[in-house]
C-alpha cells in the first residue's frame, strides 16, 4: 500500500449537524491527476479541506505519506499540500501583491535572499511585476485567482489541490492554467481538482471521482465514468459534448461505433464519413 493519500472510512459532520462525508474510502497515488465531481453540497470541498488538516474527520483516518493528519498541524501539512480555494478573496489577505507571495515563503524557513529571488521569479512568471506594490483587493476576478494560485505555487508543494480552478476564467486563462498543470504533471506532482467543468475534466483529467450526498458514487477513468449517462445524471452533471453528439447522431440513425469516445476520435470518424458520402455522390 504505497498510496500518497489514503482516506480510510472517513466520516465528517459540521457542528450545525450537517453530515458532509459518509464512509469515504479513497486512495490517490503519487503523480496522479484526478478530478472530484458532483452536485453542490456533495461534500467535495469538505473532502479536500481534510488534505491539509483544515477539517479533521470525526471518525476514520486520513493518511498522507502514511502519516495520520491528526498528528500534524495545518502549517506543517501545507508544506506538502497546497490548496487553492474556490474564492480567491478567501486566500488573499496581504497589503500588496509582493507581500502576498512573501508570506507564503517566509514560513518555509529559507534565507532572505532566497525569498527575494523566489518572489521576483514568481512575480515575473505570473505577470505580476507591474502590480507588485498594488493591493490584491483591487485586482480583477481573474487576476486575483491567478495571484491566489501563485501564492501557493511559490511554495512548490507536492500535492496540488484546486477548488473550481476554471470557474470564472476566460478561455485564455484556462489555457494558461492547463499549461501550468502539464508542467507540474511532468514534475510528478499529484494534482487533485474539484470541478463542475465536464469538458475540461473529460479532455484533460485521466481519473474522476463522482460524489453525491457525502458518499463516493463512482471512481475510475474519466472516459468511462463521464460517458455513463446514469452516473452523470445522478451527480447533476451533463454528458461531454462528444457523447451528446454521439447520442444525437444515433437518434438520427447514424451508427457511431462504441470506441469513439474522445473529441479527436469523433472528428476523425465524421471526416471519414463525409469523405465517404462525397465519394458516393460522385
Amino acid at each position: 500500500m504505497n498510496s500518497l493519500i489514503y482516506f480510510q472510512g472517513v466520516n465528517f459532520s459540521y457542528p450545525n449537524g450537517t453530515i458532509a462525508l459518509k464512509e469515504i474510502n479513497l486512495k490517490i497515488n503519487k503523480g496522479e491527476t484526478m478530478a472530484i465531481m458532483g452536485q453542490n453540497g456533495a461534500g467535495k470541498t469538505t473532502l479536500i479541506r481534510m488534505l491539509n488538516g483544515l477539517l479533521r474527520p470525526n471518525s476514520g483516518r486520513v493518511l498522507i505519506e502514511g502519516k495520520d493528519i491528526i498528528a500534524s498541524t495545518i502549517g506543517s501539512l501545507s508544506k506538502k499540500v497546497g490548496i487553492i480555494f474556490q474564492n480567491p478573496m478567501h486566500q488573499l489577505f496581504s497589503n500588496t501583491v509582493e507581500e502576498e507571495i512573501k508570506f507564503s515563503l517566509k514560513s518555509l524557513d529559507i534565507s532572505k535572499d532566497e525569498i527575494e529571488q523566489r518572489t521576483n521569479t514568481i512575480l515575473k512568471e505570473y505577470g505580476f511585476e507591474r502590480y507588485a506594490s498594488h493591493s490584491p483587493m483591487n485586482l480583477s476576478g481573474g487576476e486575483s485567482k491567478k495571484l491566489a494560485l501563485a501564492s501557493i505555487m511559490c511554495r512548490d508543494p507536492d500535492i496540488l489541490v484546486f477548488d473550481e480552478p476554471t470557474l470564472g476564467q476566460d478561455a485564455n486563462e484556462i489555457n494558461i492554467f492547463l499549461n501550468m498543470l502539464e508542467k507540474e504533471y511532468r514534475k510528478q506532482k499529484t494534482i487533485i481538482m474539484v470541478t463542475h467543468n465536464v469538458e475540461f475534466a473529460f479532455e484533460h483529467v485521466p481519473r474522476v471521482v463522482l460524489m453525491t450526498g457525502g458518499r463516493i458514487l463512482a471512481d475510475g477513468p474519466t472516459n468511462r465514468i463521464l460517458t455513463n449517462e446514469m452516473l452523470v445524471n445522478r451527480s447533476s452533471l451533463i454528458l461531454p459534448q462528444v457523447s451528446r453528439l454521439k447520442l444525437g447522431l444515433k437518434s438520427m440513425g447514424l451508427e457511431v461505433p462504441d470506441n469513439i469516445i474522445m473529441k479527436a476520435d469523433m472528428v476523425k470518424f465524421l471526416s471519414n464519413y463525409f469523405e465517404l458520402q462525397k465519394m458516393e455522390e460522385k
Partner: protein
Amino acid sequence: MSLQFLNAFRFFKKNTLIHNLDPRAKLLFAIIYTINALMFNEIIPLFILFVSLIPLILIGRLFKLWFKSLRGMSFLFIIIILLNTLFLSLNFAIAMVLRISIMLSAFSIFFLTVDPNDLALSLISMKIPYEFAFSFSLAFRFVPTIAIEAQNIMDAQQSRGYEMQQKGIINQIKNLFPLLVPLIISSIKRAFNVAEALESRAFGSEQKRTYYFTIKYNAKDWVFTFYLLALLFFLILIRINLNYMPIWFNWSIPV
C-alpha cells in the same frame, strides 16, 4: 476556534419570557444595569447586581452562550486584575472585573434576545431616522459574517504554512494580530458592496416606507420597566446613603 465568543452576541430565536419582551424594554434594561454598575466601586453591591442577572439568564436559557462570552473576555479580566492590583488595589481590581462582567452580561442578554430586525423597529419608534436604525441593525447582522470571514483568513494563512499555536490564551490572542489588517480591509470592501446592493434595490428612494412587522409594549414589558426603574431608584438611594449602610455592605478584602 478562537472566535467562538462572538457567538455570545448573536441572536438565536427562542420562545422564552426574556425573548418575548419588547426590545425597548431590554434596551432600557441594558442601559439601567450599566448605570447601576457604574454607581458602585464596592464589591458587595456589584456582586449582588451580578447575581441578580443570573435568573434572567436562566429564564432566557442563555447560560451556555453567556458563559462563553465571559470566558472570551477572560484575557481582559486578567489584564484588569494585574494592572489594578499593581497600581491600585486588589479590592478595586475585583470590583472592576465585576463591573465589566455586569455590563458585558447585560448587553450580552440584550443582543442574544433581540432580533436585529426588531431592534431597527424599536429605534424607529424612538424617532431615530430609518437610515441610522437600519445601519445599526445591519451592523449586528454582520457580526457572524465577519466571524466567518475571520475564520476564512485564518484558514488561508494556515494553508500557506503559518503556524498558529493552539494552546493557551496568550497564544490565541497572538493569533488574532495577523488577522486584523486583512479583516478590516475586507470589511470595508464588504461595506461598499452592501451599500451598492442596497442602492440598487432603491434604498432611500422614498421618504415613507412600509413596515411589515410592528412592535407593541405589553403589560409584561411595563412590569419589567417598572422593576428596572424601581431598581434604579432604590440603588440611587443606597448610593446616596452609602455611609449609613451596614458594615458588611462596604466590606472589602483585608490586605
